[in-house]
């Protein structure tokens, strides 16, 4: 029998048992849909998180902190030392603490980072409006969150001057500056954070860390090793990325396990359906064989039916999964926008993943269908004809 006829007969038979075919496809589709939603969510969160890690800072940067019990300490000498390393492209001292600004009679606190002007680019912070601060001028860059706490717009405050004070993280002493600071730029930071030139702080204020940018990927590992050997604390983004990746791998594994259970249930259902179909059609198989349909053709016929069910289940499942994901995403975005967040896509569907969601149920149905198909092919035609 030709393949085209095998497919034609399979479709005819599936159409005859329309409701049962549909229910079986729905069962597999639901399982696949569940997998698509779960893993799509997993992939989406992974993309967003890793995307924001990579975006927020540079992959090539290292955060160096003083050694245990401040030994070795971070001081101007260590800065000079670091600069001397071949792997270092640039660096910036960092004093991270709390800053206060008062404007129009309002006093607010937010995070503050003092560094050189290259700190922002090294961190991957983007200046949305205005410009970066100048290293030797009393200038300040604010984040949109600080503006909303101050209840002003960017154009209101740009180029205005305000009073700034800084809490020394080492001893919680408040450092007030004699000059007012000029607001020169607004970042895209999600947190209320302000940036100011390190040179404005008194020399006595100790650095909390040094941000170092390596020349290349290898340099990151080399520098890390070098500085760790000297006793410094070193944290690189690659570490963060690694541990994030590990967490996601486990999470994905968990999601796949849940999904696999769903698929096993669907496969058992399909096995049941195919076996019942076999019994119902015993007589039909006997007729086919008595008019000269070969065992091989009967086998192919049953496998094709199973394959079509699996394939349709996969396609249906993907459509279902995508639909449900979009709805969930829409709802979450509505909520996020209401609470002042921005809308984003929390699901992600790599094409290869979607392709596997068609291939997997098809393969599974072929495996499930194999036993009933073999039994059908081996049926004794005469006994089958007598079957009621």
């Amino acid at each position, binding site marked *: 029998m030709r393949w085209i006829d095998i497919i034609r007969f399979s479709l005819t038979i599936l159409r005859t048992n329309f409701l049962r075919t549909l229910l079986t496809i729905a069962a597999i589709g639901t399982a696949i849909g569940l997998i698509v939603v779960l893993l799509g969510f997993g992939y989406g969160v992974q993309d967003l998180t890793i995307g924001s890690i990579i975006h927020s800072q540079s992959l090539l940067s290292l955060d160096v902190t003083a050694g245990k019990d401040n030994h070795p300490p971070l001081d101007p000498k260590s800065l000079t030392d670091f600069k001397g390393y071949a792997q270092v492209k640039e660096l910036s001292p960092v004093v991270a603490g709390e800053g206060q600004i008062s404007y129009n009679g309002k006093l607010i606190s937010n995070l503050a980072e003092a560094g050189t002007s290259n700190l922002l680019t090294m961190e991957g912070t983007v200046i949305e409006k205005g410009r970066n601060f100048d290293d030797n001028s009393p200038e300040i860059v604010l984040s949109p969150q600080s503006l909303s706490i101050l209840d002003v717009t960017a154009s209101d405050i740009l180029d205005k001057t305000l009073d700034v004070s800084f809490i020394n993280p080492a001893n919680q002493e408040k450092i007030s500056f004699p000059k007012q600071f000029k607001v020169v730029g607004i970042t895209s930071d999600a947190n209320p954070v302000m940036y100011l030139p390190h040179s404005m702080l008194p020399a006595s204020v100790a650095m909390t860390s040094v941000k170092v940018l390596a020349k290349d990927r290898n340099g990151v590992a080399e520098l890390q090793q070098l500085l760790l050997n000297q006793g410094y604390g070193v944290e690189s983004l690659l570490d963060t990325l690694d541990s994030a990746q590990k967490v996601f791998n486990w999470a994905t594994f968990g999601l796949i396990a849940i999904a696999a259970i769903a698929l096993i249930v669907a496969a058992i259902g399909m096995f049941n359906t195919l076996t019942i179909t076999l019994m119902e059609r015993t007589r039909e198989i006997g007729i086919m064989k008595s*008019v*000269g349909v070969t065992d091989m053709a009967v086998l192919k016929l049953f496998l094709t039916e199973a394959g079509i069910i699996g394939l349709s289940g996969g396609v249906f499942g993907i459509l279902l999964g995508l639909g449900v994901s979009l709805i969930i995403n829409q709802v979450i975005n509505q909520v996020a926008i209401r609470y002042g967040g921005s809308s984003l896509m929390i699901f992600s569907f790599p094409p290869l993943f979607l392709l596997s969601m068609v291939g997997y149920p098809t393969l599974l149905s072929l495996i499930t269908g194999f036993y009933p198909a073999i039994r059908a092919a081996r049926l004794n035609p005469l006994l089958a004809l007598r079957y009621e």
Partner: protein
Amino acid sequence: MPRAHLPLITVDNVSKTYGDHPEDYSQLILINVKVTIEEGEFVIIFGPSGSGKSTLLNMMAGLEFPTGGRIFVRGSNLAKLNNGELAKYHRDRMGMVFQQFNLIKSLNVWENVALPQAAAGVPYGKRKKRAHHLLHLLQVDKYANRHPNELSGGQQQRVAIARALINDPSILLVDEPTGNLDTKMADEVMNLIHDLHYRAQHTVVLVTHNPDYLRYATRVIYIRDGQIEKEENSQHDPGSVKPVLPEEYYKQLIRFRGK
């Protein structure tokens, strides 16, 4: 020396037992049966139920195999055929008609008729045309797109006969064709089978327990308790049966065989 004459079917000393013990005579269905079927005959195997006549027919059809003896079709031993050759035998060499009609419910009438053609790999358009033509000759073409269960018993049996004829078999094997039909339909179906032999030159082996139709046969084999009692040639004048189909259709049926 002239070549030995080869009958169409030779049943050579065939026995059949069921169950695991071939020596258990209570299970013996056929005992040392010898039958030959020649081309052009209309043979009726007649006997009460349980006599083994259907088993004999099923063995000729290659649906069952003897536990003793051999069955040859044009010289080849049916028991020696492999799966593929047996399927080809079912498909091309014989056409079978059953008491239960045995049409496939999920296929429509013409698809049922064309099934042996599909099994043989004949393309869709060609087999559809051939099935429709044959249904036309048997005067059931108006049901071509219906499903079997929408048809009367007599119509279904005609469709089943069409399916048996579609691949132009060398022999028609017919098992109690009237068992599920009322008298009028039964007569019509029997007359049609008679015509297929007498007017369209088909070789027919038919199994029945109904003595009314014995006169149609060229030869009757009486079977009882698994053994052949006697064989009798018929004195029947086949011309006395009124044709079921228009005369012209039989000529077309003969031409159809050549296609």
